[in-house]
C-alpha cells in the first residue's frame, strides 16, 4: 500500500506541476480566445462545484445560483471599476455615495463579493430551507428572479438594465484556476469531514439523520451559505473576465447551464463537476458551428440561432433519462480509478506509465 500511496502522491505532484507550467505557458503564449475559454472553464468549474455542494451533496434542489452569481459579479465589478469609468457608466443616475469613489484590489473585491453572496444566501436560507423538493426549487428560483428584478430597478447602484461596462479585465488564468483549486480543496476537505457526512446523511434521509443527532437546519444553512459564497466568487471572476454584465445575463438559463454541468458530471462528485465544466464549456464553443452556416462546398447548411441550446437541453434530458449517474456518479477522481478506467487502458495504458498528464486531483 505504501508504494501505491507514494505513486499517487508523485502523480498528483507531477500533474499539478504540469498544470502550473501549462497555465504559465497558456497565459503568455496561447491565443486570447483559447485563454478566455480556459478561464470560463475554470469559472464554470467553481460554479459547478458550489452548486453541487448544495444540490448534489446536501440534496437541496436549489435553482437560485444565478442570483448568487449576480450578487458576486456586481459587487466585485463595482469595487474594481475605476472611479473615472464609473462616472461615464452611470450617466443616467449617479452612483450612490461611498461606492462611486471606492476602489479595492481584485482579491479583496472578490472576497467581498463572495461574502455578500453568502449573506444573501443566508437570508434566503432562513425562510426557504424549511421547504423541500420542488417547493424549495421554486422558492429559490423565485429569489433569484427577485434579485434580478431588484438589480434591474436599483439604477443608482447597478445602473439598471443597462448593466455595467468597462469592468477591468483582472481575471486571468492564475486567478481562475487558483480559485478553482482553492474551492476544490476547501470543499473536498469539507465533504470528507464529519460535517460533510452529516450533509450526505441529511440528503439520504432527513428523519434518520435527525434522529442520529444531526442538526439539520444548521448543516443545511451552512452548505447553502458556503455554496452561495463560492457562487459569488465565481460570478465576480466571470464579470471581470467578460468586462460587461447586465441583469439579463443572470437569468434562469445561467442556472440551467450549471445544472447541466453537475448532472453530467454526477450529482455528488466535485471532480465530476470539474471535468464536465470543461466538457460543457468547450463543447459550447465547438457547437457554435451549429448556430452558424456550414459550407460543405457543394451545399450550404443554414445554421439556426439557438440550435446549440436545443442540443444542450436534449443532452440534459438524455443524461437524466438514460445515464442518471453522470460521468462520475458520486465518486471522486482517484488515480486507482483512473488506471482502472477503460479510457486509460485504451489510450495511455499502452505506453509506459508515469508519462501521463491532466489530473484533477
Amino acid at each position, binding site marked *: 500500500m505504501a508504494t501505491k500511496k507514494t505513486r499517487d502522491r508523485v502523480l498528483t505532484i507531477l500533474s499539478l506541476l504540469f498544470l502550473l507550467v501549462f497555465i504559465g505557458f497558456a497565459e503568455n503564449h496561447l491565443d486570447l480566445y483559447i485563454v478566455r475559454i480556459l478561464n470560463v472553464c475554470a469559472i464554470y468549474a467553481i460554479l459547478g462545484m458550489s452548486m453541487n455542494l448544495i444540490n448534489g451533496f446536501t440534496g437541496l434542489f436549489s435553482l437560485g445560483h444565478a442570483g448568487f452569481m449576480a450578487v458576486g459579479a456586481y459587487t466585485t465589478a463595482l469595487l474594481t471599476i475605476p472611479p473615472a469609468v464609473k462616472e461615464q457608466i452611470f450617466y443616467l443616475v449617479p452612483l450612490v455615495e461611498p461606492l462611486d469613489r471606492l476602489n479595492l484590489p481584485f482579491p479583496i473585491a472578490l472576497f467581498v463579493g463572495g461574502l455578500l453572496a453568502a449573506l444573501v444566501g443566508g437570508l434566503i436560507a432562513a425562510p426557504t430551507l424549511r421547504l423541500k423538493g420542488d417547493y424549495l426549487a421554486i422558492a429559490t428560483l423565485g429569489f433569484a428572479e427577485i434579485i434580478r428584478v431588484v438589480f434591474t430597478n436599483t439604477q443608482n447602484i447597478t445602473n439598471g438594465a443597462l448593466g455595467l461596462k468597462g469592468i477591468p479585465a483582472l481575471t486571468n488564468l492564475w486567478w481562475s484556476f487558483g480559485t478553482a483549486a482553492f474551492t476544490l480543496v476547501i470543499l473536498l476537505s469539507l465533504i470528507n469531514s464529519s460535517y460533510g457526512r452529516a450533509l450526505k446523511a441529511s440528503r439520504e434521509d432527513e428523519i434518520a439523520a435527525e434522529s442520529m443527532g444531526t442538526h439539520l437546519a444548521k448543516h443545511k444553512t451552512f452548505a447553502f451559505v458556503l455554496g452561495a459564497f463560492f457562487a459569488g466568487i465565481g460570478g465576480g471572476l466571470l464579470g471581470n473576465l467578460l468586462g460587461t454584465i447586465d441583469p439579463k445575463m443572470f437569468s434562469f438559463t445561467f442556472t440551467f447551464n450549471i445544472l447541466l454541468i453537475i448532472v453530467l458530471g454526477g450529482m455528488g462528485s466535485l471532480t465530476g463537476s470539474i471535468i464536465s465544466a470543461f466538457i460543457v464549456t468547450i463543447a459550447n464553443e465547438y457547437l457554435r458551428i451549429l448556430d452558424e452556416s456550414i459550407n460543405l462546398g457543394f451545399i450550404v447548411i443554414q445554421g439556426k440561432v439557438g440550435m446549440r441550446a*436545443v442540443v444542450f*437541453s436534449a443532452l440534459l434530458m438524455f443524461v437524466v433519462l438514460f445515464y442518471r449517474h453522470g460521468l462520475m456518479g458520486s465518486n471522486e477522481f482517484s488515480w486507482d480509478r483512473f488506471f482502472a478506467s477503460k479510457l486509460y487502458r485504451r489510450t495511455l495504458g499502452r505506453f509506459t506509465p508515469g508519462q501521463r498528464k491532466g489530473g484533477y486531483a
Partner: protein
Amino acid sequence: MAFDLFLQHLSNGISLGSLYALIAIGYTMVYGILRLINFAHGDIFMMATYFAFFGIVTFHIPWYITFPLVLVLTAALGIGVEATAYRPLREAPKISILISAIGASFFLENLTIVLFGGVPKPFPAPKLFTDVVQVGSVSIQKLTFYIPVVTVISLLGLVYLINKTKTGMAMRAVSMDQETARVMGININHTIAFTFGLGSFLAAVGGIMWGMKFPQIQPLMGVIPGLKCFIAAVIGGIGNIGGAVIGGFILGIGEIMLVAFLPNLTGYRDAFAFILLILILLYKPTGILGEKTAEKV
C-alpha cells in the same frame, strides 16, 4: 381614484386572474397526481399560441376551426411530454424527474426559437373578441368579459369530469394512493397521461385567450406566466383545483391593483408573485385550501 377607473382595473384583474387560474389548474392536477412540478407547463401554454398562429395565419383556417384544433394538438403535446420526460423516470428519484422536466421545458423553448424564430409574432385575434365596448365612461374590450365566462364554463366541465365520470374517479384515486389504485385495476399510466392531456387542454384555452389579450407571441412568453401560475397553485393549496382558481384570481387582481395603485413599483411587478409565494410558504405552506399532511417514516 374614480370609481369607474377602479372598475376597469378590477375587470382587467379578473380577466388576468381567470387566465392564471386556467393555467394553474394544469399545475395543480399534475402535482396532485405525481407530486411534481410540471416545469414544461408554461411552454405547453406557449406552444398553444403558436399552434393558433400557424393555423390562422399560415394555413388560413378560420378561427372557429383552428381553436378546437389547437386544444386537441396541445393536449397531445402534453401527453407527448409526459411520455418522453416523465414516464421513463417513474421510479427514479424526484430530483431526476425535476431535472428532466426542466430539460423538457428548455427543449421546447429552444426548439421554438429554432423553428419559428425568436422575433415576436402578432397573434391573429378574431375581431369578434377584440372589439371595444363602452360601459359608462369606461371602454373595455369584449374579451375582458369573454375570458371569465370561458373560464367558468371550462371549470364547470372540469368539475363534472373529475367528480362524475369514471376517468375522473380514477384520477382522484391515483392522486390519493397510486399503489392501491393500481391494485383496484386502474391503469396508472393512462390516468397520468390523461391528466397531462387535460391540464394541457386547459392551458391551451388559457393560451388562446392570453394571445388575444396580449397579442404578441414569442418563444419565451410561457416562462413568467408559467412560474406565476405555479405560484397561484401554491397559494391556493397545491393539488386542490378550487385552490388553484382562488390563487389565480388573488394573483391576477393583486398584480393589476399593485400597478394601478402604486405605479412607482411597476418595475417590481414580476417580483410581486414571488414575494407573495415566499410569504405564503412561510406562514401557511399548505396554501389556502390545502390540507396538512404529516410525513411518514
